């Protein structure tokens, strides 16, 4: 495809036109604002958006929109209609709120189940399950590579038995589960399917959402095992399997909300995320699906930072860019293919270690921004103890309440896309869209997302942002309460934090060893061989993974079987761009 995506939309010329408004603005500037500013100098030399550092004008008027070639019908349109800037649903949140979710994961399957019940009781209806780093990196709990990390950053998962314990849950209350286990995704998907079967849960009554986002792992998260090309193949296997077998489930998410904490700016977020989506789409299309079938399965998690308008406009631009990309690059024709599926979230990185109660204020503002930006089907909130440790129960309660406060008390969800038509919001949205398509062209020109990962392009770009944005804080261009502004001399932690029981690791190690001693080893060996064989011959990995999982082969063993074929991706992934 040699068409530049940034050129596909003929309206998108970016050419300036003059308008009668220019004259009016000039008059106001010289008669009214100018003299005032002369007497009251502005409080800073330049006003810039927080991440993109784009200049912010003192005033936005129709002239700004005209200069951008803004066209209401083309650029904004109506809710539920192309280009979906005003939302993919036709009625905003007037028919129903977004699903309120939170992330959870620590310790053993048992402790997870207890925590999950507590969360459902706080009014949450969806859960995001995070695993520990042993699991997501494809090791069992007794592997020397992960000594000291078992259950620390998420739930430990060694075998189907652990999931059976974790799923001791009221499935009538839990309607939505997102599972974050990217590199070993087929193993994880197989385990969940097997566990649901054992629990007698009808897969049609429940939405399993696997993130399956291996390409972001290479870009900025780090939980990878195999080289990128094999990672992409495994992800595609899972997508294919779900489309064919569980069409009501969600087989893939692109978590832009991981690019952002790695300091991608909004334009990079949109461009990198969509370029990454294209890599999965292209791989899935190669399996014989058509774009109108595939596109509706794609899902994005997008967060907002403290710059209120940058965040809101990013959400709006994301919807629009996806629609345009699907229509113009892939020739999608069905509306469903052009409607982005989205979960939104306040960002974690705005939350400080210092004076953690201030974070509740930040979270409320960002959750409001999410809602004003359209919220998506789901919203998840990090918690005010974010910078200290995994969430404590009290923080979970406050976070759950917070979503309800935004939903029920503020009125921001009572009309659809209330900020549409704001000269500032529409200008920024359109500028982001234009810049994102330009950046996407750059990535497509270098051969797409996989190439951008292999050559370290993404990683280096993020590294630069990390360094620059930290300088903004250290040099005082950005004030951050508690960090470089209104600092306390003597910081005394205002909250109590979560602590993991120290014996957890040895208990988990004993458990997996015990399992290995009592299962049918011959069956395990033969199913592991099936896994290797499937890895080698290129057939879909799901069938062999299901067989292995059901034979109680451990998560780590299955991951090692694939290592035998795919090899390992080294420590030199260029993550961080150092």
């Amino acid at each position, binding site marked *: 495809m040699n068409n530049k995506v940034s050129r596909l939309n003929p309206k998108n010329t970016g050419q300036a036109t003059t308008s009668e408004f220019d004259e009016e603005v000039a008059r106001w500037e010289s008669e009214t604002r100018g003299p005032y500013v002369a007497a009251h100098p502005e409080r800073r030399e330049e006003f810039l958006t927080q991440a993109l550092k784009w200049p912010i004008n003192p005033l936005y008027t129709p002239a700004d929109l005209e200069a951008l070639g803004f066209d209401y019908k083309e650029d904004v349109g109506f809710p539920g209609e192309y280009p979906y800037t005003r939302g993919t649903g036709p009625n905003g949140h007037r028919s129903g709120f977004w699903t309120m979710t939170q992330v959870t994961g620590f310790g053993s399957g048992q402790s997870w189940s207890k925590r999950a019940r507590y969360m459902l009781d706080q009014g949450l209806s969806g859960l995001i399950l995070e695993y520990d780093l042993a699991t997501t990196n494809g090791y069992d709990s007794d592997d020397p590579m992960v000594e000291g990390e078992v259950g620390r950053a998420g739930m430990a998962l060694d075998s189907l038995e652990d999931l059976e314990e974790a799923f001791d849950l009221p499935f009538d209350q839990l309607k939505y589960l997102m599972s974050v286990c990217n590199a070993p995704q087929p193993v994880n998907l197989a385990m969940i399917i097997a566990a649901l079967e054992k629990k007698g849960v009808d897969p049609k009554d429940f939405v399993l959402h696997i993130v399956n986002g291996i390409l972001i792992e290479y870009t900025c998260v780090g939980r990878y095992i195999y080289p990128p090309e094999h990672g992409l193949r495994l992800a595609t296997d899972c997508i294919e399997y779900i489309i064919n077998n569980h069409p009501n489930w969600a087989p893939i998410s692109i978590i832009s909300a991981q690019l952002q904490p790695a300091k991608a700016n909004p334009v990079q977020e949109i461009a990198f995320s969509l370029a990454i989506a294209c890599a999965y789409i292209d791989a899935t299309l190669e399996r014989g699906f058509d774009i109108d079938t595939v596109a509706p399965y794609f899902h994005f998690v997008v967060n907002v930072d403290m710059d209120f308008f940058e965040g809101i406009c990013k959400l709006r631009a994301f919807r629009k860019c996806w629609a345009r990309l699907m229509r113009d690059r892939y020739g999608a024709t069905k509306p469903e293919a052009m409607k982005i599926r989205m979960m939104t979230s306040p960002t974690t990185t705005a939350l400080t270690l210092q004076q953690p109660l201030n974070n509740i204020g930040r979270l409320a503002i960002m959750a409001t921004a999410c809602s004003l930006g359209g919220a998506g089907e789901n919203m998840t909130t990090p918690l005010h103890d974010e910078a200290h440790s995994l969430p404590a129960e009290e923080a979970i309660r406050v976070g759950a309440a917070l979503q309800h406060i935004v939903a029920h008390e503020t009125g921001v969800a009572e009309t659809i896309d209330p900020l549409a038509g704001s000269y500032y919001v529409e200008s920024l949205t359109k500028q982001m869209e234009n810049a994102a398509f330009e950046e996407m062209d750059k990535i497509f020109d270098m051969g797409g997302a996989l190439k951008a990962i292999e050559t370290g392009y993404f990683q280096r770009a993020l590294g630069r942002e990390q360094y620059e944005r930290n300088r903004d804080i250290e040099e005082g261009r950005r004030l951050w309460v508690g960090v470089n502004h209104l600092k306390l001399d003597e910081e005394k932690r205002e909250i109590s934090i979560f602590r993991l029981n120290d014996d957890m690791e040895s208990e988990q190690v004993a458990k997996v060893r015990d399992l290995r001693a009592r299962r049918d080893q011959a069956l395990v060996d033969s199913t592991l061989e099936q896994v290797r064989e499937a890895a080698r011959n290129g057939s879909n990995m799901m069938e062999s993974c299901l067989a292995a999982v059901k034979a109680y082969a451990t998560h780590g063993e299955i991951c090692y079987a694939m290592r035998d074929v795919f090899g390992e991706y*080294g*420590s*030199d992934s260029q993550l961080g761009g*150092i």
Partner: protein
Amino acid sequence: MDVAKELLSGTILAGARAIRWLDDGDPRGARTLAEIFPHTGNAHIIGITGPPGAGKSTLVNALISEQRRRGRRVGVIAIDPSSPFTGGAILGDRVRMGKHTLDPDVFIRSIGTRGQAGGLARSTHDACLILDAMGYDLVLVETVGVGQDEIDVVALAHTTVIVGVPGLGDEIQAVKAGLMEAGDLFVINKADRDGYEDTYRQFELMLHLRAESKALSSDDWSPPLLRAVAVKDEGIAEIVDAIDQHKAMLQNTGEFGLRSAQREREQALTLTCTEIMRSIRQSADPAILSAVEKREIDPYSASQLLIKNWQEGRGT
């Protein structure tokens, strides 16, 4: 710890410390070197050079594996540029060699250029001697990413491997001018990338021109052109074969010892020049210099005066 004695018996802590002293210009370094020098001259010094990002470190990583497979103990000196403004550096080459960190028969050392031009650090030669004395069979020296005239490594190494990559475009001209005349072995890495064939043909042509040239060609050795995909360990055994052949040729022709001898001789001269330069700068009469600044006397005449003063100062 008797550093010299310990390093001769292969103690890593001691070798690492000696290199540090030499790198820092600590006098203990020179003393240690004097003690260990009689035990050097055995290691095969192999330079790996090429433009920035060509995959030198990745290639070194693969070469270590292959050399280890052949039972040899491997030392590595990996040089990265120091900032000319702050003197600081981020030395990241070993990131690509991580899998050898725990191999007791591999020693990897990162060194910053610390203001030295030419693609090497001032202490590179010394560090090679230390590794040589520690009993490493070969030392792989990875230069900084270089342009056309940063080829000091040629004078240091017995065997110089030039690494090229597809898609260098105009940079190939730079490679041609300097590096093409210098290499003993040419490797086009990233052969999995688009443009490999073009690059191969360009290199072939240049090697052909080199073979035609009387001044540059030799009867004993015609530099082979090899392909590699360092990230996938492809073509690595062939490179090590060629390196071994080059070494055998050097040994058969007596060139091996000759190159080492020449290197030490040059090093002696370099050290002398550096020392004299330092000494002249230190003793230079500020009055003469300020006279030049005020244009009262020209730089040539000033230089004559400064040398004369320095020599007399020495005499007294």
